[in-house]
């Protein structure tokens, strides 16, 4: 079977697609999710990128949360990003230009720590405590790294996918066990 001109041109476009570099912003791979801009930030550049964005006008950190991808490790990510179990998701808002951006940072299970954004956005204080409480990801440099919603002597992290629901006895704070 000889190559038809059509097949050749298809090969050519495929090659061209492969050679186009991934879109980037501030040195991080940038993707779009349903029309929303997402930056995939490496963990060691997390605070640095957030600081650059804050200087660009993203003055408010509206939301900080995490996702445990234990049961969905094959999710779609840019080729240069290696998926880890946890992902920190930060939504920033620029009220002067009315635009939003989302940062996604991979956090491995073996070393579930990330730097705090508290110095940049003091409003993340409660949100980071919530992520710690629910996922067990600790934030280095956070001023008050205690649990926020669960009792302080609770065992386990409820929003992790391997947290057993309904099979563990209910824990009451201070009760004799």
């Amino acid at each position, binding site marked *: 079977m000889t190559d038809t001109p059509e097949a050749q041109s298809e090969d050519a476009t495929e090659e061209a697609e492969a050679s186009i570099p991934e879109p980037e912003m501030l040195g991080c791979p940038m993707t779009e*999710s*349903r029309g*929303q801009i*997402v930056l995939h930030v490496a963990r060691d550049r997390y605070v640095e990128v957030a600081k650059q964005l804050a200087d660009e006008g993203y*003055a*408010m*950190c*509206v*939301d900080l*949360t995490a*996702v*445990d991808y234990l*049961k*969905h490790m094959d*999710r*779609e990510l840019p080729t240069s990003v290696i998926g880890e179990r946890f992902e920190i*998701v930060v*939504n920033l808002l620029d*009220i002067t230009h*009315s635009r*939003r951006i*989302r940062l996604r940072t991979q956090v491995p299970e073996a070393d579930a720590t990330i730097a705090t954004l508290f*110095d*940049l*956005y*003091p*409003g*993340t*204080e*409660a*949100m980071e405590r*919530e992520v*710690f409480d*629910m996922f067990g990801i600790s934030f280095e440099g956070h*001023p*008050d*790294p*205690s*649990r*926020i*919603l*669960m*009792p*302080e*002597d*609770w*065992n386990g992290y*409820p*929003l992790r996918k391997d*947290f057993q*629901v309904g099979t563990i006895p209910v824990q009451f704070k201070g009760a004799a*066990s």
Partner: protein
Amino acid sequence: MTMIADEGAQELRPRSELTARELLREVGSVLRLSEAEAAKLGDLPEDPDEDQTMIINMGPSHPSTHGVLRLMLELQGETVLRCKPIIGYLHTGMEKTGEQLTFMQGGTNVTRMDYASPLNNELVFSMATEKLLGIDGDIPERAQWMRMLLSELNRMSSHLLFMATNGMDLGAVSMMIYGWREREEVLRFFQKVTGLRMNHNFVRPGGLAADLPPGWRDDVLRILDLLPERLEEYDILMTGQPIWRERLQGVGVITPNEALALGATGPILRSTGVEWDLRRHDPYLRYDEVEFDIIVGSYGDAFDRYAIRLNEIRESMRIVRQILDRMPEGDYRIQDKKVTPPPRARIDESMEALIHHFKIFTEGFKVPEGEVYVAIESPRGEIGCYIASDGSPTPYRMHVRAPSFVNIQCLPHMMRGGLVADAVAVISSVDPVLGEVDR
């Protein structure tokens, strides 16, 4: 098996046990100062003697804490030096529950978070689901306007509830009765439309659960005719009254920079003079087609927040009048077989419709892989919904950015240096709903 997790105490602890950073946070310093700026301020005031201060506990079941909010306050005489809100008493793991429920059932869960504005919660969840499905551009016009009608009426009922509780907290007890009375008028309309006073599960992915009932226009008009004179009564009872002003003016002041740094949204941010309302600046539904004003304050105090909410009721009424004029005819939900169950009448005559109906309610519909964050303006500020889907009929992760949860961080800042008696006024002016704080 028992392992004591040691992540530190949640309570307010004596100053001697704290790090400098934690202390700064608890006294409510949030602004980022450069070293040069800090040097200009000179020496920080020294810590008071520990025998001059007292740490007291307020709540979790205190009549003015709007639920089960617990505050620990460090007092010197009557002055509040530090404050720490302790939350979690109402935590029921709703985000975890959200991972078990299908997108179809999810509304019943999220509607219970902010129980004073349930329709806004359902709306943001539905909008996030629709965005994931890629049908957010195909929602029929009538559904969009109906959603707007319900959302604005819900804003009114929520702010009327604030009027009631704010009055009660500050000793204007008759205001409590009035506020509940007017709110009941709105809830009666909701009951007629959705069947329930609260926790409606009426806004669903793809549209709404049902069309508006016959006579709905007259009911809305009755509320719109009744409220203006009642709001004027509130003005006479509270706005112009010297005691009321004394209690609120200059209490719980917050500056624009602090509000932005803390992530505060809604009336708290607007009270500082920042004009930011998602209905105007990031329009959703058909808010770009109606006329309304954004109410902003100038001092950032509790009185501004009261006045903003009172006038937002008036603006919402203005929007509702325009909705009444422009409500289009048509379908109240999208006719996409994937997300919409077949009409009731079809089920009796068609086996396929019955199977389809059964499948959609037992299995739900599959939502393509992806993640999305959608935010709308709830009466308390920006309510956001982050959903990550793995392609199954249940959300892989469903997170709600609750405005009260973030706004409550302003409390230490607003209370610092104020009087204990004003603490109640400050909590009230933040208007937290603890169901949403704890989720």
